[in-house]
Structures are given as C-alpha cells and as structure tokens.
C-alpha cells in the first residue's frame, strides 16, 4: 500500500528487545459473536513483552475486533484473555486495572474536542492515577515534546491537523505509562503527507521496547518494525510469520491473494 514510505522509515531493530520469558498478552481459544455472527473463531495468540505485532487482513476479517477485546471495548464469549497476568472477566475492577496498563489509539483519534490538548493528556493521569495536576502537566508536556507538538498544548483538537491529532492521541495514551499499546488503523484516516509523522512516532516507541499490537496496512512499517505479521480472514488467524518471510513467501492462498492486491498497484 504505502511502499513508497517504506524507504523513509528509519528503524533500528537492534534496539527492539523481545523477552523470552515475560508474556504480555495471552489469548487462548477466544471466540466472539455479534448476535448470530461468529466474528472471531478460536483465536490463539501469545504476545511476549517487547514484541511488535502487525495485524492485517481484509475489512470485516475481525482484526479490529480482536484487539478491541484485549481492553474490553468488546466482550468475548468464549476462551481466555490474560493481559499482563490479569485474566479479563466481567469483574469491573480487573477491567479497569487492565485498561490502566493498556493504551489505545483509534483510527479517528477520538480526542476530546471540548478539552485542550494538554487537558486531553492530563485527564486520565489526574482522575485515574490520582496524579497531582502539576505533575500530570509535566508528564504531558514531556510526551507532547516526544511527539513533537509541545507548542500546540493550549489549542483544541479541532484546530490541529489529522496527523497532529493522532500524535496527541498517542501522547495521551503514553501519559498513562502503559505497558502495552494497541493501535487500531492509526493512519487510515490520514492524508498521505501526515502518515509518516505518525509512523515515526510509532517507530520511536518500538525502539524503546514498547509492546505493540498494531492493526495497519502500512506494509513498510510492518517490514521495518514488526517482528511478527499476522494475517486474518473471516475471523481466523490464517497465517503468521516474520515480516520478511511473510511478504516474500506467503504460504496460504488467501494471504497470497491479499498481498498481491495490496502490494501491486
């Protein structure tokens, strides 16, 4: 899709350490239905600490639904999800505990339009982590500097470009100091000129050893950053492999078709 960007992405894989022993997310035999529709079928996935996983697949394949189950934006009906050692159940306390450790970025950013950029970033630390306001603002400015927009702190989201908004959304998640970051098509709603600035931030995160689960069609990003690419279709994991092998030598016929569709045009 964005092969042109692939050359621009500078990523240092040597910095990205994957743990052999610590499990970040463990999904065991997970099933989910929307009414009668069996949207996720027997998903098994173990994510180690520090892994960067890219999930791709056609629309309607269940990839977004899968990562939304990890922080309980969607409820699964069968199987187990264990995040950072805590099993997801209907217990609200556990759900809140997990959500505190798992950051998420959405396709449409979902910044709070009635709050300034700074307030967007300090809200959760102040109310959820009970951090003093001053300290929360310092933390927020630190992360806003990291995503390179500290000068926008006192503007409202509506005054920013899409790329800037998505970077704010990433900073907002980072302010909670999460152990895992979920990205749900973070660049799909952006103009081509702005995709790179968001990907750069994500590469930076990967280099710092963040555990990342990313639904995206940015194959350049997948190649440079991911240590595993997962292909989903019809609610199932069809194929997964290291990026190089995945792109050059896809095994399943559905994967081959998908890759030929998105890479050769």
């Amino acid at each position, binding site marked *: 899709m964005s092969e042109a960007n692939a050359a621009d992405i500078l990523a240092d894989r040597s910095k990205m350490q994957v743990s052999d022993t610590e499990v970040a997310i463990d999904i065991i035999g997970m099933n989910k239905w929307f009414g009668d529709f069996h949207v996720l079928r027997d998903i098994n996935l173990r994510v180690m600490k520090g892994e960067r996983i890219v999930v791709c697949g056609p629309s309607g394949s269940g990839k977004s639904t899968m990562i939304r189950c990890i922080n309980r934006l969607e409820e699964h009906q069968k199987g187990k999800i264990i995040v950072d050692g805590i099993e997801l159940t209907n217990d609200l306390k556990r759900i809140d505990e997990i959500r505190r450790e798992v950051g*998420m970025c959405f396709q*449409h950013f*979902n910044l709070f339009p*009635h709050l300034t950029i700074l307030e967007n970033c300090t809200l959760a630390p102040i109310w959820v982590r009970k951090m003093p306001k001053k300290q929360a603002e310092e933390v927020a400015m630190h992360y806003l500097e990291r995503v390179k927009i500290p000068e926008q702190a006192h503007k*409202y989201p509506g*005054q920013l470009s899409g790329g800037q908004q998505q970077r704010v959304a990433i900073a907002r998640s980072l302010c*909670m100091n999460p152990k895992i970051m979920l990205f749900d098509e973070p660049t799909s709603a952006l103009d081509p000129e702005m995709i790179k600035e968001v990907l750069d931030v994500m590469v930076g995160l990967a280099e710092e050893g963040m555990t990342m689960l990313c639904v995206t069609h940015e194959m350049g990003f997948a190649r440079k950053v991911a240590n595993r690419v997962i292909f989903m279709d019809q609610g199932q994991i069809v194929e997964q492999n290291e990026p190089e092998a995945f792109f050059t030598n896809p095994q399943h016929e559905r994967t081959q078709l998908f890759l030929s569709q998105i890479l050769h045009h």
Partner: protein
Amino acid sequence: MTDNSSIAFVMKEAKEAMPAPITTTGPLAWTRENLFSSPLNTALTILSLIFLAWMVPGLVQWAFVDAVWVAGSIDECRQLSSEGACWAVITARFDQFMFGFYPEDLRWRPILAFVLLCVALLPVLWDAVPARKQLFAFSAVYPLVAFVLLWGDGWVFQSVSSSDFGGFLLTIIIGVTGISFSLPLGILLALGRNSNMPFIKIICVTFIEFIRGVPLITLLFVASTLLNYFLPPGTSFDLILRVLIMVTLFASAYMAEVIRGGLAALNKGQYEAADALGLTYWQSMYLIVLPQALKISIPGIVNTFIGLFKDTTLVSVIGLLDPLGIIQPILADSTWNGLVVELYVFVGLFFFAFCFAMSRYSMYLERKLSTGDRH
C-alpha cells in the same frame, strides 16, 4: 498525444492577497445582501416597511401617547383619554401582581430573596465572575436561604402561609425551582434510560413515558386533590410544594428526552476513548460525555426551560394566584370592569422578558462553548 507545451504550467510568482471590494463588506453590502437580493426579496422588504408604517404609529399612540398611567378607576381613565391604554390598573394593582397577598410589611423578604437569587445565579451563568468558587458555595445553600426568607422559620422570621403567595413571586418560585431541579433529574433519567442495567432502564423508561403521556394539568389536579387520598391521614403537605414537585417531575421527563438526543448525537468513539483510558462510568460521564452532550442539547434544554416557565400559569386552574389568577378578580371588580387587553399585555410582556432573556443567554452560551472544536 497533445503538445506538452500547451498544458504545461509553472507558477512564476505567488499572488498577493488583496482587500475585498466595497460591495462585499460593510453596511451597503449587508443591505443589498439581506433586503434587496432578488425581486421577491425587494417586494417583501417594501411590504414589510408598509406594514410597519401602518402598525407602529397607532400602537405607539395607544400604548404611550394617549395612555393613562395613574387613575382610580376605569371611568376616570376614560375621562382622561378615551382612546389610550389604561395602565392605571397595573399601577393600582402592582403590588398584587408582584406578591399576591404576601403580608405588606414583610415584602422586603421576597425582594431580598430575589436579589440574592441574582447573586446565586451569577457564578452559574457567567464563568468570568470574580471569586466564583465562594459564590458557588452560596448558590448551593441558596435554596435554604430562599425558603427561610420566603416562608419564614416561625422564629426569627415570621411564618407566611403558602396561600398568601401569588403573582410573579409565585411564577418565579415555581419557574426557578422547576428549572434548577429538572435539569439534574433529567440528566439522571437520560443516563438511566441508556443504562445497561435492565431494572434501572425499565424504571426510567416507564417514568418518562408515563409523565410525557399525561397532560400537566392532570398532574396538577392530582397534586391538588388526589394526592391527599394516597398520603397517610393527617399528613398535610403544602400545596405549593406539591405543585413544585409535579412541575419538576413533568419538566424532567422532557429534559431527559432532550438530553438523550444529545447523548445519541455524541460519537461512539468518545465513550470508547474514555473507557480505554480507564475512566470509570461516572468519571467518563462527568468529564467527557455530559459536557459534550449537554452542549449539543442547549437549544432543546432552554426550549424546555421556556416551556416550563410559561406552563407555571397553569397553576391558576388549581386556585393558586399566579399573575393570571390575579387577573380574574380584577376583571370581575366593578372599578376596573372592562379592561382586558392591558392586563394580559402586561403579563405577556413580563413572560416575554424572561423567556427572551433565557433564549438570548442560550445563544451566548452556544457561541461561547463552540470555541475551538470545529467538529
């Protein structure tokens, strides 16, 4: 293939911005744009001007030039000016219009309560007011202050019976109480209606649909007569209090539906982002959802407020002496018998002033809150 040179173009220098021509800005442009933009518009403008020229002079003559301001009776009025308005009836009965039969020597108390009401409203309506936090504390205790001032505590302040209340005093008591309690109640009902918990949801839906399905007058009759049958014998329950409860419940059901509209208009992503950050249900409602949903609902909320304020006149049918209730005995009084228009115009103007103020305030609020977020 076309010759490349015919379509190729490269910008040589950037074009400077120029000031707009006089015909697109300024009063002249406004007049042309708004009053004479098309033949139909021009015709309508001229027709309106003719209509105003025909109406306004007569109205001014009647209401001001020929009007009588002070007189003892309608006959005296007619002798002074046979064609003009007889405002003397308002002047003569002004105190009754304001306070009903509230004891004369205690009338400073409702006046003080009204002044304090304005102070209590300041921090609520205007965020730039100095010492807003302290004023908010006062707003919070104001209902108690107002109650003691108006009804008395029978100790420092002499007690006043509810049956003595009347006029605009009564209108403002019912209106302000109804408005300030129906909003929070309406919010809770709207949230309850959207709740995942079936029990709470059923209660809220039943309440809203029942109240909306019954005319306010019916509820007021229930309040004035039937309620006594349901209460244990011997309990007496102040009539004004009963009316306040009914009016508040009635308005809150409408409020709930208006706010539900605002909640539905909000992007689902806002709820999800709040959830994903780990905010609890009440935190996400208070910090994220309600500020936005209420902003969207401002026109509807103020609409309900205005409706409630005007509906307070319905209490005259259960014998309370609101301004319309005050008019009845005046109409029957031989001194003023025959005056109708002046009385209703006066009451109408009073309601218009309050409702118009509310409407303007809501427009100001909408403009103020729209800064920054252009979504």
